[in-house]
């Protein structure tokens, strides 16, 4: 007799597999790009686009797996006291090559003495997602910065693109719960925002929860994504 497996488990293990293949693909491509660059072949810029798409896919899968774990109550939060500058620089190193290849500069701005208690890998996952998106909308510059605002740590990603569409905007004053639906017109699944919201809300201190905000404007006059951690 075969035991019927839970479909979400099947999905999750398949996701895992796919994610591993993507990881290998990404690394192989990295080698090819390095070779290409050494031989001055012009197509290495094209490869960056490939790599970008792989990264996007990979990010989506990681996000999905995290959501799956959260659904199954297996997503544990692992809080430590971290240098925020360290986290921002790590994230920026990850994306630098790809963004630079597109002529986009990435800049970090953070007080080296800023430390906060948070789950590093979850937060890095959120930031990765947002920066990866800005790759598509940014003209010349992305800025990641962090500071403390009324008891919350704020990590902010600003770009100089056209800004977020009105349907995606929300902030702490006017915070409509994000509608979890797939917008077939824009192709946006909203999962990115759902994931960010979930991660922010998992951070709780003194009965205060974290939250996110998405607005337009900011110092680069483009999209502004912020995550607030108590």
């Amino acid at each position, binding site marked *: 007799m075969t035991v019927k497996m839970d479909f979400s488990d099947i999905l999750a293990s398949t996701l895992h597999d796919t*994610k*591993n293949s993507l*990881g*290998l693909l990404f*690394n*192989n491509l*990295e*080698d090819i790009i*390095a070779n290409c660059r050494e031989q001055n072949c012009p197509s290495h810029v094209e490869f960056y686009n490939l790599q970008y798409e792989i990264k996007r896919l990979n990010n989506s899968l990681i996000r999905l797996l995290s959501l799956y774990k959260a659904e199954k109550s297996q997503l*544990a*939060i*692992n*809080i*430590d*006291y*971290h*240098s925020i*500058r*360290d986290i921002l620089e790590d994230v920026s*190193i990850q994306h630098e090559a790809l963004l630079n290849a597109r002529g986009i500069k990435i800049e970090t701005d953070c007080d*080296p*003495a800023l*430390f*906060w*208690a*948070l789950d590093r890998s979850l937060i890095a996952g959120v930031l990765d997602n947002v920066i990866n998106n800005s790759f598509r909308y940014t003209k010349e510059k992305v800025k990641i910065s962090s500071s403390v605002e009324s008891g919350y740590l704020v990590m902010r990603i600003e770009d100089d693109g056209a800004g977020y569409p009105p349907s995606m905007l929300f902030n702490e004053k006017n915070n409509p719960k994000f509608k979890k639906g797939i917008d077939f017109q824009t192709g946006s699944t909203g999962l990115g925002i759902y994931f960010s919201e979930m991660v922010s809300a998992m951070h709780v*201190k003194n009965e205060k929860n974290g939250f996110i905000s998405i607005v337009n404007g900011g110092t680069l006059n483009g999209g502004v994504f912020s995550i607030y951690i108590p």
Partner: protein
Amino acid sequence: MKPDPQQKISLKNKKVLVVDDFFNFRLTLKNMLRSFGVMYLDDVATGEEAIGKMSVRRYDIILCDYNLGQGKSGQQVLEEGKFRDYIHYSTIFIIVTAENTLEMIMGAAEYQPDDYLMKPFPKELLEKKLKHLMEKKENLTDIEKALAVNNYAQAISLCDDLIAKSPRNLSEIMKLKGEILLKNGAYYEAAEFYDKILLMGNVAWAALGRGKTCLMTGQYPEAKNIFEGIIAKNDKIMSAYDYLAKTLLKMNNPVDAQTVLMKATTISPHAILRQKNLGDIAYRNEDYSIAETAYKSAVKQGEHSCYKSPGDYTNLAKSIIHGDNPEEGLNVLARARKVFPEDNEAGLNITITESYVYKKLNRDNEARSAMTAVQKIVEDLAGNIPVDLKLEMARAYIINGDYKKGTEIIKHVVQDNHDNNEMLDNVRMVFRETGMEDSGRKIIEDSRQEIIRLNNEGVKLAADGKLTEAIAYFERAAARLPENKIINANAAQILMRFMKEKGVSEQSLNNVKTYLDRVRKIDETFKDLPMLLAMYNELAPED
């Protein structure tokens, strides 16, 4: 433009070890490292060779493949390096993996490396990671020097100086400070320190440290609450299970302790020490099938581990004889002999267990001749026999009909451990298993009373103000019972009280240190230990 601090960091003087079973990958990695300016560069193909290299040269950076084929894994190299003190706080250890098994590895790991690297990777990434980690670690070397000469006060003050400067590795330094405080017996200071960190956020290692302070100071219900709280928030923090089980044992609840460890081994089965511990507790709880499973994994995981021990085999053999196929126990012991051919102590353990197993299989002659062999090994060892082996030996003598020899050994064990409930439980179990529960109770009680009388007499001398006599009395008692915690603690305390009144002498201070070291070795969670250490630190000159 801000200056890039990483520009200043040079790899030139760093000693680097590369461990990978593939020659080509070692070559690639070495070329990368040379291009960063690394000059001291060694490479080996196996974990065993890596440990060998580490024993003769102190490396600053170790890049180690996870999957090294037949022998030790990268994780085991890290574990053994830390165990043998080849890998320090300031050593950079990076695990390199080919497959994307990261999550699996990380989930199970007790010892975390400083970073993981996925093969293949560009050399820029390696360089950035190394420089990043070096910048982080640079500030740990002075603290390490202070720790190497046991200068805890200086190590703590160095930590405080660094913490005030908020370096990138602030968390690591705070963690280290907490560990130093705990090791130094400064439990109240440690508790206060951890509480401060917990105010900033729910940091798991700080909660764990706070729980340890409760455990060490005998606040068991509080410790239990804290450890349970950590697991409720994150069920992957494995050491919380170990400490919860420890706490439950202290609360005389071995059944729950077993349940906790069983849950932990389901989540993270690749932890040899936990499997051993689970085996011991399950065996004590007479849950032999669980004990068998646990010892079996301990034996298997021990194959390439620094925690390999003959006890895993003998315990497995003892668990097996309670099952359906008791003869299998003899095969396990035969294997043990092959694995530990030159080790006298192992030989003793195996031979004692052989006798026990033969007896249980009703092969009396073989059981008795094994005991003759035991006698001979004991003579070779000249008295240096660990306490658990003494009990095993007593049990073997008793079931072979030699009650006198058996109970004589047990009397000594009880006298050395008259206040150690866990050990007395083990003694009771030996009596229960050999059908001597009633007479055993009397033997335990008489031997305990003898030591209590002995101790009280000394305490009375001190209370009557006869300090010099009390000191001489306890010195004699401690010489007779070097393994008895209370006697050694009292010997230390009386001597320190005397010095407080009459002045410090170096000779007496040395004696106190010997007594306190013994106490710590016997039971590092002894509730009076912090008080005694504080007294000692007051008397000892600062250096």
